[in-house]
C-alpha cells in the first residue's frame, strides 16, 4: 500500500513538474507565458489523437511535445515579434487552447486510449520494497527528474544558461552586449511549450488514458504558481510539485480512512500549503528580488 501511495504521488506530481520546469525556463528568459493550461491541453489532445491513430503511445508523446511547442510559437510570434501584451496574449492562448482542443478532440471523446507502458527491468523491478519505486515507474517520471537536473545544470552551470538568465534580468544590457534577445526568448518559449505539451500528453496517455475536454482541470495554473513558489529555482520546483502531489493524495487517503476533518478543509490543503510556503519565502525580500527575473513580462523592442 505504501509503495502504491508513493507511486500515486509521483504520478500526480510529474505533469506539474514538467510543465513548471518549462515555464521556469520561459520566465527566466524574461517572458511571462500564462498560456500553460492551453499548451498543456493541446498536448493532451494531440498526444491522444496520435497514439489512438497510430497505436503507439511513444508517437503520441512525441506529438504532444510538438503540439505544445507549435502552439507556443503562436504566443512567441505575437508577444516577441508583434510585441503584444504578454499577460493578455497568454490568457488568450489558454482560452484558445481549451476551445480548439475541444473541437479537435470531439471524435476522440469516449474512446479508450493507448497507455504508455511502465518500465520493467528484470530482477531490479522485482526487488522487494524499492523495486517498483525505483525501477518500475513510467518512463516520463524518470524523464521529469532528468529534465529538472538538466535545466538546473543548464541555467547555472553553462554559458548558454548564463546568457538566458541575463536576457531575463536585463534585456537592454544583453542586447547591448550583442546577444540576440528575441532569438533566445523564442527558443525559451518553445521549450516551455514543449514541456507543457509533454505534461498534457502525460495526462491523456498515462494519468487518465483517455481524452476528455478540459481534462487538464487547472493543472496549468498550478504549474504557473509552482514557478513563483519555487522562486525560479529548478530543484525547488521539484520539491513544490511533490509537496503539492503529496498533500493532494494524502488528503484523499485521510478521507478514505475516515479521519474526522472536514473534507472541504482537506481539499483546500494543497493550496493552503502553497500559500504558507509562499509567505515564508517572500519574508526575505532581498532573496526574492535576487531570484526574480528583473525583466519578467516587460516587452522588448530592440533599438537600431
Amino acid at each position, binding site marked *: *500500500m505504501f509503495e*502504491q*501511495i508513493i507511486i*500515486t504521488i509521483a504520478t*500526480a506530481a510529474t505533469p506539474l513538474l514538467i510543465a513548471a520546469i518549462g515555464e521556469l525556463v520561459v520566465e527566466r528568459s524574461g517572458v511571462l507565458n500564462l498560456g500553460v493550461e492551453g499548451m498543456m491541453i493541446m498536448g493532451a489532445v494531440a498526444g491522444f489523437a496520435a497514439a489512438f491513430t497510430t497505436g503507439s503511445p511513444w508517437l503520441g508523446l512525441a506529438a504532444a511535445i510538438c503540439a505544445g511547442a507549435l502552439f507556443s510559437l503562436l504566443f512567441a510570434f505575437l508577444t516577441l515579434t508583434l510585441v503584444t501584451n504578454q499577460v493578455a496574449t497568454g*490568457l488568450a492562448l*489558454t*482560452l484558445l487552447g*481549451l476551445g480548439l482542443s*475541444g473541437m479537435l*478532440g*470531439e471524435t476522440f*471523446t*469516449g*474512446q*479508450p486510449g493507448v497507455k504508455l507502458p511502465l518500465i520493467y527491468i528484470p530482477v531490479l523491478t522485482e526487488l522487494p520494497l524499492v523495486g517498483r519505486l525505483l525501477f518500475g515507474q513510467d518512463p516520463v517520471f524518470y524523464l521529469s527528474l532528468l529534465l529538472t537536473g538538466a535545466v538546473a545544470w543548464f541555467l547555472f552551470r553553462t554559458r548558454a544558461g548564463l546568457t538566458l538568465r541575463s536576457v531575463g534580468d536585463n534585456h537592454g544590457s544583453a542586447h547591448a552586449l550583442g546577444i540576440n534577445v528575441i532569438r533566445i526568448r523564442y527558443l525559451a518559449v518553445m521549450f516551455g511549450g514543449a514541456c507543457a505539451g509533454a505534461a498534457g500528453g502525460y*495526462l491523456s496517455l498515462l*494519468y*487518465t*488514458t*483517455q481524452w*476528455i*475536454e*478540459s*481534462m487538464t*482541470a*487547472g*493543472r496549468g*495554473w498550478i504549474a504557473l504558481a509552482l514557478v513563483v513558489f519555487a522562486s525560479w529555482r529548478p530543484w525547488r520546483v521539484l520539491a513544490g510539485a511533490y509537496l503539492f502531489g503529496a498533500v*493532494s*493524495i494524502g488528503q*484523499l*487517503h485521510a*478521507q*478514505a*480512512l*475516515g479521519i*474526522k476533518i*472536514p*473534507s*472541504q478543509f482537506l*481539499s483546500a490543503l494543497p493550496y493552503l500549503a502553497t500559500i504558507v510556503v509562499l509567505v515564508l519565502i517572500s519574508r526575505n525580500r532581498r532573496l526574492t528580488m535576487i531570484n526574480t527575473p528583473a525583466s519578467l513580462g516587460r516587452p522588448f523592442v530592440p533599438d537600431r
Partner: protein
Amino acid sequence: MKKSLLSIAAAAAVLSLGTFAAEAKVKACFVYVGPIGDFGWTYQHHQGALEMQEALGGESEVELAYLESVPEGADAERAIERFARSGCNIIFTTSFGYMDATNAVAGKFPDIKFEHATGYKREHPNVSTYNSRFHEGRYVQGVIAASISEAGVAGYIASFPIPEVVMGINAFVLGAQSVNPDFKVKVVWANTWFDPGKEADAAKALIDQGVDVITQHTDSTAPMQVAAERGIKAFGQASDMIKFGPETQLTSIIDDWGHYYTERVKAVIDGTWEQVDVWEGMAEEHVVMAEYTNMPDDVKAKAADIEAKIKSGEFDPFTGPVNKQDGSAWLAEGEVAEAGVLLGMNFYVEGVDDQLPQ
C-alpha cells in the same frame, strides 16, 4: 486567479455565441456545468437536448444554444442573464449550484421560462424544477456491491455534500445493507464535479485502502478506468461507460433527459407551459440501468428483481425501519420517506462510515 479566468472564459463563450437569426419557432438554451464531452452528466444533458431538437422537427423548428463549463455561483447569473437577453424562450440550467442564479434571473424576465435541474427553489411562476430519482439506481447498485464484494467494503467518490449526493450515498448504503448488514462504505469527497485526474486519484486511494467495488458521483470516466487497471469492479455514472471497463462495469445509472426536454419545449411552442416540480425515476424511464454485466447470474437476477419492484412502485428504497447515523429513529417500520425530506437531505443513515461535511 483561476476563478476569474473562468469567468472571462464564460463571458467570452457567451459573446461568441452571437445570434443565428434562423426562423425557428422557439429558442431553447442550456447552461452546462461541464464540457459536453465529459461522457457523464453534461454529455447526457446534451444528448437529451439534441434528442429534443430532433423530435420537434430539427433546426428549422427549434434553435438550440448552449454554454459549457459555466462555474456555479455568481458567474452563472451573468451567463444565464446573457442567455435571457439573447432571445431564449426557455432556459435549462443543469446543475444544483445554479439554483439561486436561475431564480434571480427568472425574476427579471417573467416572459422567459426557466427550468432548473436538481434544485428545489421555485421563487417565480416561470421557474420549474426537474430531477430524476437517481437514488433508485443507487439502491440497486448497493445490492449488487454487497453481493459481489469479497472485502465487504465499497468506495464512494462523492462530489459536493448537497442533498442529491447525500441521498445517493444513503440509498447505496441501504441497498448494500439489505444484503449484508455489516457492509461498509468509504466515502471520499472530491469537491469537484469534473477533474479526471483527481477522480482517478480518489479511486486509487480507495483501492489502496482495500475496497473492491467503486461507485462515483462525479462526472468523468477516470474512476472506471482506474478500477479496470487495478482489476476491481465499478459502476458507471450518468452514461453507459462500458467501453472504459468492458470487464469492470457492473452497471451504470443512465440519465435520460430527452423526453422531458421534448415535452417541456413542446409546451412552450404550444403555449401550455406551466410551472412544475418533476421528480421521476425508473418507472418513467428517466433513470435507466445499463445492462448488468461482470457479475454472477444470481446477482443479476437479484438486481433485476429489485429494479422491477422499484419500477412497479412495489418498493421504495427509503422504506423504514431506517435510523439516522447517530442511531436515532428516522423512518418507522413500513414508513416511506417524504419527497420533501429527501430533496433537502442533509444527514446520513445509520451505517455510513463518514462524517458529513456541513
